[in-house]
């Protein structure tokens, strides 16, 4: 074999699959820093994903609906199964809401833009862990108040102003660890809301301060209901790990809804190895969560919400077909706002990146003014223009969902089911119990054996 790099480009680049250029750079960075690397955005791993599933629209054995004429219902209720304990379930016009992203991780303009955009679509936003920003409460028709282990800004009045309460047990981007907000983003206002010294590198607790397991959490949920007069649904957010077992324990707490947040979920800052090597993909998490609820007889009662790497209406429709009642999106909405847009290119370059590849949310130097607390950068995001773009994106997302559903003959997006899907990879079939395309056999236990 020639050792001439020109004749063998692989040799010239270095051909080791162990010591790849990325691994070499990572080791050298750690040698410089004396710590692991931290970054934002999502995993860089290639997981089997929702792309490994395809829909089977009606042909001869199913009848599609007229995609451009007939109506397809999208309304969605979170926490509607127990009127005795939830007098005001969260009613959404569409099965897509904004996942938790804090004021701190995002700037105030981004929070406002997202709140307006989702409100115009008839949907909800979530405060994230930084407390309730008055501007977001005002701009959001339906606001989910998040309670994290660190309890930043936890306030009875804010709990009572919320349209739902989400208790975070874990997040898919970094299961088993608490929040991280580097000092560049801990501005005076952010620090004030979190009772932190200005400019510190905030690391958050991972365990809640006053409960440990499911039995305690059940009491905690009762406390929140007592404090908020049995009005709003209580949602538990779980990182997707031991989903079958975790969801069962979560369901036993008496919560109204469960979020399973897959490994593709994003964050504004996390140890890189957490992003890339913890949790299971959303594709695997949804069927496991559905099965857990079915085994308890609670599927269709406790609302199942899927999140983590949902990018468009097709992903959302696949999540619903697998068993979710609703999806939550984060990064997709930020991209709609302008994340990674080819503007202020020189500022991307100053971060050592480029539009389309930026993952530098952790630096607070967001070139397009979304994940920053710097007033000059934030001014680059006009909340009204951002709201318009987010609303447009949600409209397109729902159009995709309904068109897919109608092509499969469904008058309601919630009627999508695993039978509407086929897997195009062995992994996807094994993860989901959905038969392989063409051959119609399932890798591993099939739908019936799994109870799906």
């Amino acid at each position, binding site marked *: 074999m020639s050792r001439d790099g020109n004749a063998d480009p692989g040799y010239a680049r270095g051909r080791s699959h162990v010591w790849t250029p990325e691994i070499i750079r990572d080791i050298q960075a750690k040698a*410089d*820093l*004396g*710590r692991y690397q*931290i970054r934002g955005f999502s995993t860089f791993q290639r997981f089997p994903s929702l792309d490994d599933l395809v829909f089977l629209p009606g042909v001869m054995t199913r009848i599609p609906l007229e995609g451009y004429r007939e109506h397809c219902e999208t309304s969605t209720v979170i926490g509607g199964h127990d009127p005795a304990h939830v007098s005001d379930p969260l009613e959404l016009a569409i099965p897509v809401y904004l996942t938790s992203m804090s004021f701190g991780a995002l700037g105030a303009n981004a929070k406002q833009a997202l709140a307006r955009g989702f409100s115009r679509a008839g949907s909800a936003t979530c405060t994230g862990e930084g407390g309730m920003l008055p501007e977001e409460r005002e701009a959001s028709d339906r606001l989910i108040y998040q309670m994290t*282990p*660190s*309890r930043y800004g*936890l*306030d*009875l*009045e804010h*709990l009572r102003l919320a349209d739902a309460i989400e208790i975070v047990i874990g997040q898919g981007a970094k299961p088993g660890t608490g929040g991280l907000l*580097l*000092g560049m983003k801990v501005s005076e206002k952010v620090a004030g809301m*979190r*009772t*932190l*010294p200005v400019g*510190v*590198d905030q*690391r958050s*607790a991972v365990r809640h*301060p*006053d*409960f440990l397991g499911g039995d*305690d959490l059940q*009491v*905690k949920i*009762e*406390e929140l209901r*007592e*404090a*908020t*007069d*049995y009005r709003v649904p209580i949602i538990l957010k779980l990182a997707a790990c031991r989903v079958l077992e975790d969801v069962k324990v979560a369901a036993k707490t008496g919560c109204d809804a469960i979020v399973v947040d897959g490994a593709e979920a994003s964050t504004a800052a996390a140890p890189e190895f957490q992003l890339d090597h913890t949790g299971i993909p959303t594709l695997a998490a949804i069927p496991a969560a559905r099965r857990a609820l079915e085994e308890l007889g609670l599927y269709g009662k406790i609302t199942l919400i899927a999140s983590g790497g949902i990018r468009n209406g097709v992903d959302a429709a696949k999540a619903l077909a697998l068993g979710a009642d609703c999806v939550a999106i984060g990064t997709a909405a930020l991209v709609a706002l302008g994340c990674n847009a080819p503007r202020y290119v020189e500022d991307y370059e100053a971060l050592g990146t480029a539009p389309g590849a930026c993952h530098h949310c952790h630096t607070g130097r967001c070139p397009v003014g979304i994940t920053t607390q710097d007033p000059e950068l934030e001014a680059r995001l006009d909340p009204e223009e951002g709201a318009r773009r987010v609303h447009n994106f949600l409209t397109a997302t729902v159009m995709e969902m309904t068109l897919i559903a109608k092509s499969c003959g469904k008058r309601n997006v919630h009627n999508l089911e695993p039978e509407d899907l086929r897997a195009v990879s062995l992994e996807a079939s094994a993860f989901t119990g959905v038969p392989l395309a063409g051959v119609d056999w399932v890798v591993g236990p099939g739908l019936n054996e799994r109870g799906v």
Partner: protein
Amino acid sequence: MSTAVRVEVDADGVERLNLELRRLAAEGAAEIVVKNPRSRHNLAVGQTAPVRILVDGSAGYYCGGLNAGAHIEVARNVGWGAGEAMAAGSLVVSGGAALGTGASMRGGALVVRGNCGPRAGVCMKGGTLIVEGSVGYAAGFMTHAGDLIVLGDAGEALGDSLWEGRIYVAGAIRSLGNDAVVVEPDDEDSARVHALLAEHAIDGRFAFKKVVAEQRLWYFTSRNAEAWLRI
């Protein structure tokens, strides 16, 4: 309405008992006695009126949780998370308290006449937590602000990962947590502690050790790699 009202805890639980307490307070009750509390969870949570609530026995988890103005007294013991997220008012426990007492409280005063279990004052954001007895392990864990005053002893890992909270201990400290350091209290500290104790008629005429953050974990930069490696 008379100034003192008796409320019996139902044998089936406390569901909507707190709504009843809020209703009575809104109607002008100055004092509400909760009889036969049966160690139920979630007694007197989410109260906003400056009403006096006397729990005539022991309470379970989250007694006085999310309190925003009531003055709550418990005749005997309380379970986990007493006074959690309290913003105003007070909670006085005549007996002992279990795990996470005063967790993430933001204001008001919480007094435990007996001992506390682990993680007293965890994630506190303000207010005062006074423990006349001793506290278990990891008291003051990640305490952001406020004063934790312990007249007895402190267990292991006191003040672990502190932010700007202040911890004062009169007795022995079994061990300090990560980034916690004992500093010499100054005259201002002594005056502050004695004044806080005096508000609750507690004699504070003895010496205290003061524990604060050494701030080596506050900044995640390479210069503190050694500190971060320890945890």
